[in-house]
């Protein structure tokens, strides 16, 4: 049976918890696309035209929406908040994939020493922190300004062409982090966890303080990427992970209300919110269900990594669309038959009544087997018909 909806129509039906022609398929495949296209990490981050070609060459595994890569160049905060984050965090970026290089890595440091001080004097005071020592003075002014202000425009023009040629929308226009995720980088995970227990009210106050800027910059990025003109650019990719294993009481106090405030702000401004959740959110599903309270239908999607998807469907079904979560290990080490069986089970558990997108756990690993990624796409077509 052939598809009767466009890619975008199918994705929108899923967001709306309505029944599409078949289950949409949307693994994030940024590093994988680059790797399959023979690009180095440096090429795919800095040369959008080459990434566009790799994406067009990869149409046999690209799904119903394509991650526009800019936001992986952002990942996490590497280029996107861009010039800024490369000067205030200790990123190590290699030119090549392993074994000659490595994936971009952040070296955590306690860069924020005092929450009150940062709220009083702002982030500018850590710009030249002597603790950072990331060779920021080796960057040129032109380099900083390009990545801070111009890079997004270049990516936007590339993805408009991708959509024109393929009809496949992009997954996201703007990207933001939950403040607790930002704090993992600026405060370090172990120090942040200590803070959550010893000064939770201060962490909460600081999170609200950070949230305003995150909402604004992601909205602006989405507009630059083409919100209202390029299908999918109206979606804000809201990265959530937080320190893994947060107990439900702390999660309810520190995580949910800040996230809800940010989601409400984006929706009020007309954007949709693609909530990407790392870690296992099964203990927090009831809280996540409240994300859509008071909002119009179809504006929020939860993309879940390690969460029990059957349970997620039980709690969230009919209220919020969900996406996930074929394991990364299966994509790298499994066989196409095993991927097929896993996808079949996910579709059986989650697809009834609509509101489900077949996806990977997080990013599809760069070294996944191509035949496994293709098997995932074929499974959506084989088992996902309504």
């Amino acid at each position, binding site marked *: 049976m052939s598809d009767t*909806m*466009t890619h*975008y*129509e199918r994705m*929108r039906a899923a967001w709306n918890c309505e029944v599409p022609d078949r289950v949409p398929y949307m693994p994030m495949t940024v590093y994988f696309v680059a790797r399959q296209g023979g690009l180095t990490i440096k090429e795919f981050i800095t040369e959008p035209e080459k990434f566009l070609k790799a994406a067009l060459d990869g149409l046999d595994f690209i799904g119903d929406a394509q991650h526009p890569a800019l936001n992986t160049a952002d990942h996490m905060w590497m280029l996107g908040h861009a010039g800024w984050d490369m000067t205030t965090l200790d990123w190590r970026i290699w030119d090549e994939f392993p074994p000659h290089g490595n994936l971009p890595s952040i070296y955590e440091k306690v860069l924020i020493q005092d929450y009150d001080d*940062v*709220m*009083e*004097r*702002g*982030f*500018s*005071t850590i710009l*030249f922190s*002597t603790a950072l020592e990331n060779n920021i003075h080796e960057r040129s002014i032109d380099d900083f300004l390009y990545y801070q202000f111009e890079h997004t425009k270049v990516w936007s023009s590339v993805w408009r062409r991708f959509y024109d040629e393929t*009809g496949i*929308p992009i997954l996201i226009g703007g990207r933001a982090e939950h403040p607790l995720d930002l704090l993992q980088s600026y405060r370090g995970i172990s120090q942040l966890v200590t803070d959550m227990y010893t000064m939770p009210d201060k962490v909460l106050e600081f999170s609200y303080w*950070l949230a*305003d*800027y995150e909402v*604004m*910059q992601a*909205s*602006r990025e*989405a*507009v630059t990427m083409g*919100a*209202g*003109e390029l*299908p999918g650019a*109206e979606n804000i990719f809201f990265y959530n992970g937080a320190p893994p294993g947060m107990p439900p009481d702390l999660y309810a106090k520190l995580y949910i209300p800040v996230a809800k405030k940010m989601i409400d702000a984006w929706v*009020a*401004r*007309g*954007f949709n919110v693609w909530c990407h959740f790392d870690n296992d959110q099964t203990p927090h599903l009831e809280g996540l269900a409240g994300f859509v309270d008071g909002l119009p239908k179809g504006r929020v999607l939860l993309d879940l990594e390690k969460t029990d998807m059957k349970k997620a469907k039980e709690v969230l079904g009919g209220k919020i669309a969900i996406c996930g979560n074929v394991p990364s290990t299966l994509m790298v080490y499994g066989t196409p038959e095993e991927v097929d069986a896993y996808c079949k089970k996910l579709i059986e558990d989650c697809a009834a009544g609509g509101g489900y997108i077949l996806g990977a756990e997080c990013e599809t690993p760069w070294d996944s087997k191509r035949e496994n990624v293709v098997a995932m796409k074929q499974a959506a077509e084989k088992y996902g018909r309504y």
Partner: protein
Amino acid sequence: MATFDERVMEEVRGRLRPPSDDEYNLVTARWLFGTKAEKMLRYAPFSFVLTKLMWRKGEEPWAK
């Protein structure tokens, strides 16, 4: 006749309220300069002097 994609884009354009430059600049200034944000914006471009005055003794990049 408009396609599905075109119809949704029209709907999105109708509801979008992206940040104005003033809104964006104010929030960004608060993020960068905390309680000094309004001063930084009001006295630009001479507000660059404040960036030096905001450093506390011993933490200036030139102190080492």
